[in-house]
């Protein structure tokens, strides 16, 4: 079956010739009409629409957005905050940057609808420090929107008011973790908080109830408010509704961003048809489906089991190419949908060196608060660096796995899993390469290994 067409819902205007990121262009294309309608409705209705839509977070965890909103503590009387997570730091992910740079008003409209639905009066966009132009673009867009009363004390004459503040980060992946982000926003070191008791929905920013949502998720909220939750829920697959933007990078002929209905195309269709397949003379070796925090999938593996399709339990027997690109299927085969960053590696890649690169990233980004991640991520990086720089031992693969097993599940935040899963999955699936790296020194394409951070 041929791959479906892209469904450019959030990315409709990205790469559209003549489309610019100013308000006039957005208004010409029907912008802020959804907001106009939304502020005439009851906030609870909008929350219901999002619940019905089945929208799942697009930042990495895939947590149902409507459920997250309904966990907000409304009893304490404290102000409710929305934080837009524009920290996009998951390696392999580059979708939010285009929304911010090319279609910022879609984000702002989505933010205002979200705020109205949750009775938020102050919202913050936490944008990664590496997007200085993006911050400027957003500030200009907010100023434009405020001038037209799409943002500010009296939105479209509704009596409801909400202000947006931009806060720039300064180069830390851990600021993408929701409680790390909150700490950073409060001006402190981004040490994630222990949960319990510091669930953001109860004790978030300034110890007030807070929602943290990804940029793409908030853009979907706009579309849900537009078409209705039920219509949205019919896009994609049950429990994996709507569209999502896949960021494909690595060894394919046409890397880039592609938006599809969730679960309506397989990995093989995405990589081979949409992205043109492997580079000339090469074969696919491995793919990481959801940003480097997700477990790697090895081409040639089979995944068997039973899953629910409709009302029935159906057997599945998949190769990597057959996996439908949705949250549940990817979780079933032992990986995750994550942030949608699909990183493709072909047979020119030494998995030991690839893991070395990944470990260098995580050890550099570990905040250092809790023992297993802080010490374990650096240890794993030192092992792979030592291997790559010529001093590998056959047992290093087993040692890496043992160290990673001591990190996952024992840390304050999910960074522990994020730094442990790559190591665990690489060693589990490509264990032979790790064992023989010492002998073969450098893998298929020997040569000087690049200096790792």
């Amino acid at each position, binding site marked *: 079956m041929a791959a479906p067409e892209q469904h450019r819902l959030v990315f409709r205007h990205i790469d559209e010739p003549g489309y610019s990121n100013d308000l006039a262009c957005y208004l010409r294309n029907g912008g802020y009409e959804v907001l106009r309608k939304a502020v005439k409705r009851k906030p609870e209705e909008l929350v219901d629409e999002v619940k019905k839509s089945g929208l799942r977070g697009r930042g990495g965890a895939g947590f149902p957005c409507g459920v997250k909103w309904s966990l907000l503590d409304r009893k304490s009387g404290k102000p409710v905050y929305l934080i837009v997570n524009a920290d996009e730091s998951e390696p392999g992910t580059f979708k939010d940057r285009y929304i911010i740079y090319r279609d910022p008003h879609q984000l702002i409209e989505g933010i205002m609808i979200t705020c109205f639905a949750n009775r938020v009066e102050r919202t913050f966009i936490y944008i990664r420090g590496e997007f200085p132009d993006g911050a400027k673009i957003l500030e200009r867009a907010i100023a434009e929107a405020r001038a037209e009363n799409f943002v500010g004390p009296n939105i479209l004459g509704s009596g409801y008011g909400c202000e947006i503040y931009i806060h720039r980060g300064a180069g830390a992946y851990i600021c993408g973790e929701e409680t790390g982000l909150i700490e950073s926003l409060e001006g402190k070191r981004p040490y994630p908080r222990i949960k319990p008791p510091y669930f953001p929905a109860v004790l978030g920013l300034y110890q007030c109830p807070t929602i943290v949502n990804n940029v793409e998720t908030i853009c979907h909220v706009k579309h849900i408010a537009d078409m209705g939750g039920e219509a949205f829920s019919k896009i994609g697959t049950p429990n994996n509704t709507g569209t999502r933007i896949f960021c494909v990078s690595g060894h394919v002929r046409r890397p880039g961003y592609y938006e599809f209905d969730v679960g309506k195309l397989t990995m093989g269709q995405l990589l081979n048809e949409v992205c043109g397949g492997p580079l000339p003379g090469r074969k696919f070796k491995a793919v990481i489906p959801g940003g480097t925090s997700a477990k790697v999938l090895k081409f040639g593996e089979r995944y068997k089991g039973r899953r629910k399709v409709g009302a029935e339990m159906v057997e599945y027997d998949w190769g990597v190419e057959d996996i439908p690109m949705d949250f549940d299927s990817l979780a079933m085969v032992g990986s995750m949908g994550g942030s949608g960053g699909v990183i493709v590696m072909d047979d020119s890649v030494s998995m030991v060196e690839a893991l070395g690169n990944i470990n260098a990233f995580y050890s550099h980004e*570990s905040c250092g608060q809790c023992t297993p991640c802080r010490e374990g991520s650096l240890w794993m990086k030192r092992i792979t660096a030592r291997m790559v720089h010529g001093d590998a031992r056959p047992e290093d693969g087993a040692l890496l796995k043992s160290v990673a097993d001591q990190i996952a599940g024992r840390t304050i935040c999910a960074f522990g899993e994020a730094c442990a899963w790559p190591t665990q999955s690489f060693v589990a699936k490509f264990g032979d390469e790790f064992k023989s790296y010492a002998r073969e020194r450098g893998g298929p394409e020997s040569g000087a290994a690049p200096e790792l951070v």
Partner: protein
Amino acid sequence: MTQPATKDLITVNIDGRDVAVPRGTNVIEAARRLGIDVPHYCYHPKLTVAGNCRMCLVETGMLAVDPATKAPVMDPATGKQRVNWIPRPAIACATSVMPGLHVRTTTPLVRDCREGVMEFLLINHPLDCPICDQAGECKLQEQSAGYGRGYSRYIEHKNVKPKRTPLGPRVTLDDERCILCSRCVRFCKEIAKDDVLGFTDRGSYSTLACYPGRKLENDYSLNTVDICPVGALTSTDFRFKMRVWFLNQTNSIDTGSSAGANTVVWSREGAVYRVTPRQNDWVNDTWMADSGRILYKEIRAQGRLGSIRVNGAESALDFAVKAAADILPRGRVAVVGSGRSSVEEQFLSKKLCDALGARASLVSRVGKGDGLLVSADRNPNVRGALVTGLIDALPSARLDRLGAQIDSGQVTGVVSIGEDLAAAGLSASQLARVSIVYLGTHANATSAAARVVIPTLTVFEKSGTLVNQQFRIQKFHKAVPGVAGATDDLLALARLTAAVGGPVLSAEVEPLWERIAAEVPALGAVSFAPIPDTGLLLDGAPWAGLPFAEGPSLHFEPAARAAGEARP
């Protein structure tokens, strides 16, 4: 398991044993009550929970109930209600007790968690044990022996960080040893209210430092050394001086103020090496002021009196008390007692006063209280003088009335028990007009002007009790023998009292207490030995109207003193 009748107690099950603890107790404390040790680093009972060391991971579970009917789900194997064990371990320090909570600390998962954390802490830890002060009282040593894997798999290079940074005048930091538990950071922020410490850099290169331009120099800086589980924060005074397992520990009291912080004096072969706080949840928690720690240096400070002198010539105790009796005319003697004397010494001072027909004055020392453990009254035992009846009003800082009496010739002899009369306002000519008998530890203008000088002991060299601002009577014990030439204060006072015609009294604390309990109304129900290490609260009501100088400090509210405090 059934929940106890009291609503504020919750029963939890740890390793198969039930224990009922107050609401809000965390699992580490609940386990401690059962004698189960849950190893930890960053948790401290007196600081907020950080949860970052991950050493206290335990398995938790809740009693299984049917979600629809709420009926208990039974386990056919045991016949008891099933426990749903949560696969992900939880940190015990941040888990508050809940009805039905079950905890396991001896499973393979928990053992693996502990070995894992231990291994991670040791991989970048320098091999400093042979030169590290913390050896012998190091949590890393203890817990790696108790819960660690026992061998190393780490063959990479270790982190290099600054090794001997003075953070301030009294604390030296070795960054490589730091396990980033953040106890010191939280202590400075929450207890000392001096937010001066923080981490810089990221990940495994995180380094403890003072904020730029600041120094760790508050009066509680050495508490960070006490609570540091490893040898990262060290006392500059104690560094490299002595191995802790060679030191004797003696319970004592900080005499820097009427807060009366409980201490431990560490000594060996007659020398004191350091003073650390002793836990007393009603007085000082686990803290003490730096200013109280350095008091041990007075033992061998310059000017320590070392020989009994009569008119400048060396003498012996019997001659000295006889000479004193000769120069103290009954009815024209003043006794200057001290707020730094113990209760027993003040009792004997009162006997001396009675025998001499003299009035006693004390000298007050009032400063600014810091709201924590240095109270406004820098005398540790003014209340002991009130309780024993040595004085019946609060002392003033200057002995003006005595000065006037000297000028008018009313007083021709003065016994000063540990107080420098010149510092209290008497002039040199006034000192020259009277015959002075001085009992004290260090040379000063009074000892120079005195005709009889009997050197006595510092608080470290004798035993006794002191009454703190809470009217709590607390014991201190002799840690080191007195310096050569010094006489025990009780012996000197007892002999002096007898020499001037007063009763013959015991100079030993315990027999003396039989007299004290018999004669002092406030201490009637007290006997010395059973006073607990945390002290005994006396009834301060008879003195409630006096204008005490102290403001609020840790565990002390001046107004609600009688009403609010819990009795131990």
